[in-house]
């Protein structure tokens, strides 16, 4: 094992795949010479050269469209959208074209491509550079969606995404880029569609994603120590495919489900999880399902405002105490 930051693990994941497969190429805005605005792709240009690691104009439609065209003709492109908010600029490419091409063409078009993007809040960037939009992608049939919470997961899931024959969106949480963690040495490839149980408890199952996983773990620690409430924490990791078996099994054990979502309230990913649990696990539940989300507002910028908008560990503790006790 080696200790890496989340941002270095991103670069390591891309480098591993560029090294392995000549069909892989990587492009985006400021990703090559500058090494990425979040420094997630430092060293790739130097190692793999300008043929395989390319700087693009500020043209999100061209970037994602080009990834699509390259993928359907035999390459395995990785395209970066600098901030996930900018997916709105090229949503036609993502939602109308990439997601539907295989289905509409009766399987003639194959699109093995990856779109990586910096997602989510916590960096005081305001409402147009901080959104958690993984639920947008989840709502479109034909897209696979992952949101890794740790350095090991981001490397392994990027690798899995590149090797997958379908289009995959990788939502990297920008507040996690500086986080350090153990990453397996040598080749590391994870599996899409697998959730991870990070902590076992008996009173309540907290299901979380990306940055919220860390806040859920912190809350679970406090709940256990200070309030005697013991929680399971599940990291969903992959929204599509969704590992419902792990979630259902863990909810059945504790009889309670709490989702912690960075998405604004309406149609956050937890709503789908809550619906599945209500449908399929109802008789194992000991109380109502609780969804802890960002309120249904655009994200404000100032420290105090942002911190009190996105679910915090304190808020998770408070809500679980109020609803579960």
């Amino acid at each position, binding site marked *: 094992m080696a200790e890496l930051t989340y941002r270095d693990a991103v670069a390591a994941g891309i480098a591993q795949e560029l090294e392995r497969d000549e069909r892989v190429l990587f492009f985006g805005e400021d990703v090559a010479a500058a090494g990425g605005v979040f420094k997630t792709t430092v060293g790739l240009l130097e190692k793999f050269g300008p043929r395989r690691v390319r700087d693009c104009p500020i*043209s999100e439609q061209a*970037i994602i469209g080009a990834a699509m*065209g390259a993928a*359907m003709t035999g390459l395995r*492109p990785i395209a970066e959208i600098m901030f996930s908010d900018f997916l709105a600029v090229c949503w036609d*490419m993502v939602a109308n074209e990439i997601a539907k091409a295989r289905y509409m063409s*009766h399987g003639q078009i194959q699109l*093995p491509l990856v779109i990586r993007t910096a997602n989510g809040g916590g960096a005081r960037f305001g409402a147009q550079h901080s959104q958690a939009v993984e639920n947008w992608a989840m709502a479109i049939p034909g897209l696979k969606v992952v949101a890794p919470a740790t350095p090991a997961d981001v490397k392994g899931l990027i690798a899995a995404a590149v090797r997958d024959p379908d289009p995959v969106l990788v939502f990297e949480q920008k507040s996690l880029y500086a986080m350090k963690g153990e990453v397996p040495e040598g080749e590391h490839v994870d599996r899409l569609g697998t959730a991870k149980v990070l902590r076992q408890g008996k009173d309540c199952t907290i299901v979380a994603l990306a940055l919220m996983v860390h806040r859920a773990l912190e809350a679970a620690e406090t709940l256990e120590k200070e309030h005697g409430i013991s929680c399971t924490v599940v990291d969903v990791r992959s929204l599509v495919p*969704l590992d419902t078996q792990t979630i259902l099994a863990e909810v059945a054990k504790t009889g309670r489900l709490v989702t912690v979502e960075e998405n604004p309230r309406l149609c956050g990913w937890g709503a789908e999880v809550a619906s599945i649990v209500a449908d399929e696990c109802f008789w194992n539940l000991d109380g109502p399902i609780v969804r802890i989300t960002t309120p249904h507002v655009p994200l404000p910028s100032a420290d105090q405002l942002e911190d009190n908008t996105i679910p915090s560990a304190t808020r998770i503790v408070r809500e679980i105490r109020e609803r579960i006790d």
Partner: protein
Amino acid sequence: MATTTKRKKAAAADDIGQETRLELYRLQVELRYCEKRAYDLFLQNLIKGTSHLSLGQEAIAAGFGVAMRPDDWTFCTYRGHAHTLARGASMTGVLGELMGRSCGLLAGKGGSMHLTDVEHGVMGSYAIIGAHLPVAAGAALSAQYRGTEQVSVCFFGDGTTNIGAFHEAINFAAVWKLPVIFVCENNLYMEYTAIHTVTAVDHPAADRAAAYGLESVLVDGNDADEVYLTAMKYINRARKGGGPALIEAKTYRHSGHSRADPGKYRPEGELEKWLERDPLKIYRERLLQVGFAEGTLTDIETETMRKVEEATAAAKASPPPALDLIDKDVWADGGAAWRN
């Protein structure tokens, strides 16, 4: 003046070769007859939804179709029946798709606006204006990266020149010198609105070329010879690493924008004037003028009509798609599962 131009064009056509000229004619006849058949099938309510006909614009599809190498790629819009057929797609497959039958190119899953035939290099028909220009550039990037000397050809209407993706894609292709030919079929109307009333320049594509360091290329889109020669020139240049081109081909659609549009916004006499410049009429007269026998052309017409009848009968006889297709091919594993 008119006579001089006619002679000049006939002379240029002499470089094309007899076989190619007959193929250009045959293809235009096929596109015309098949598209007319699609219109008839609409009137019989055998084709549902919408459809965008290329009647009057056949010379562009034929000129490029004949000029392209079999492994080159076509990207077209929702007005893509002609471009799909021009690459050799099966007529039964096209009519079957329009009719929603299992023999359709997409087994009924795509419909009129999404014709695709990868085997023949038709990499899709894209129904959102502008979307396929970046995609065509991406395919060209793939050809350049792999050194295959394949060329992407991307067809779109005049209305597309006012959407962002047009500008993003052409700049992108120019910066990386990608082997992609952008072909604007300027039929004078974006949908129901005359293009000149909503565009800041006279030639919506050609006048924008300079912004991307490209040559301004304006051709008569109703003259198959001129289209073919232009296509050969720029496709070959792109194949040899000379980078992209933006070509504006001026033409006219004989019918409205779509099935729902009778085209009543057109000034009186305009359609009649353009019917005089019907690409099939022009080409037929030219072939006769340069010495092809009337019988040769009649034979082509008769044989093509026979093929259209045969394809129509086959498509009509084909059953509707099996319902299990609904849950197929969302993913590469052939299925649609989003959870375990």
